[in-house]
């Protein structure tokens, strides 16, 4: 196996790990937001849950630019680079999963806020 192939394999592994990790984080945001929005509390608990939603929103806002860069990077690899069919397919699947999870987390957080404000 050539050096180039080895380097490509290790880069591929890191990208796939990153996509997996952040898809799981995005899904976590979604679950936490759902939980906070649904929690029935007294005044103190309600304030805490609202604060929790704000924290989630802030964390998502700070992670988003780098997650978008990761998505763009992988997308450019799918579009332009020399990849074997299975890696290209795996990139496509994981990228779609990550982008959809991020979009879903943003939507659920928005709904979570609207629900808590009622």
């Amino acid at each position, binding site marked *: 196996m050539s050096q180039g192939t080895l380097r490509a394999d290790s880069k591929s592994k890191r990208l796939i790990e990153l996509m997996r990790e952040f898809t799981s984080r995005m899904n976590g945001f979604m679950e936490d937001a759902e939980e906070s929005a649904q929690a029935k509390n007294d005044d103190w608990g309600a304030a805490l849950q609202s604060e929790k939603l704000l924290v989630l929103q802030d964390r998502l806002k700070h992670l988003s630019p780098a997650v978008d860069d990761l998505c*763009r990077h992988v997308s*450019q690899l799918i579009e*332009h*680079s020399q990849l074997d069919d299975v890696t290209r397919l795996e990139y496509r699947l994981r990228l779609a999963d990550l982008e959809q999870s991020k979009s879903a987390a943003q939507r659920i957080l928005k709904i979570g806020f609207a629900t808590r404000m009622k």
Partner: protein
Amino acid sequence: MEVWQPIRWAWENRDEVQRWLKILHRWFRGKKTEPGILIVGAGGTGKTTLARLLAGEHDFLLDSPRAYQESIAVERFVLNDDKDVEILAPPGQIHRRHATWPDLEAEIVAGGFRGLVVVSAFGFHSIGNISYKEHRLYKGSKARFLNRYLRDRRNEESAILQRLEPSILGCPKKLWALTLVTKQDLWWNERSIVESHYRGTAEDSYGQRLEAIAAKKASASFRHECAFCSLAISNFETGTKEPLKSTTEGYDQQLQIDSLRRLFDTVHGLMKWEATR
């Protein structure tokens, strides 16, 4: 001509260009009851720059060209003087088209758009944050890579046209298509070849394909125009800042504004055609 002269000329003509842009905004906006306009094209051709220019978010004279950033989802730009009006530009990457284009194509067939701006760039499609050496077309020589890449992307531009053909043919209403060929500053020395390619005189060219589509539609219901321009004067380089081609020597802001003036003339023709319905 001294360096400052074109800049002064551009500055002095800025008001005129802003006036054209305002007319373009209004045309894009249309009447509230009219269908909208869709901007399509391959990734990296300049769709976002065009949409930002039309939405009033980009000043071609004052803003420096932005580094290319791939659009992840369908971009929606709101016109700065009418927040109810959106300019839609779906992402152009092949793997993103499956998810984002079918709904818009169905809308074309349903008569939901009165015009399509198909953005092309004679193959000069911006590459994101990867090295050209990672590209599937790179085989050891940068010069050969560039030739292969430009040819490959031009084929992609034709493939987009082929993909849009059923939607254009299926549209029951009057529809126009404007092929906007951007990045004139990069291909200015080859302009006669470029114009033949898009205007249909060259064999197996984009223009010939488009003529074939137009031949299948009644002339009263479909009109096509071509316009060539530079939305931002900028060298062709990868997202990792590797230079691939410099802007053509002598291509300045005066030529850029001339290109926008011709674009405006073309649009004016489309406006008149729309008004004849």
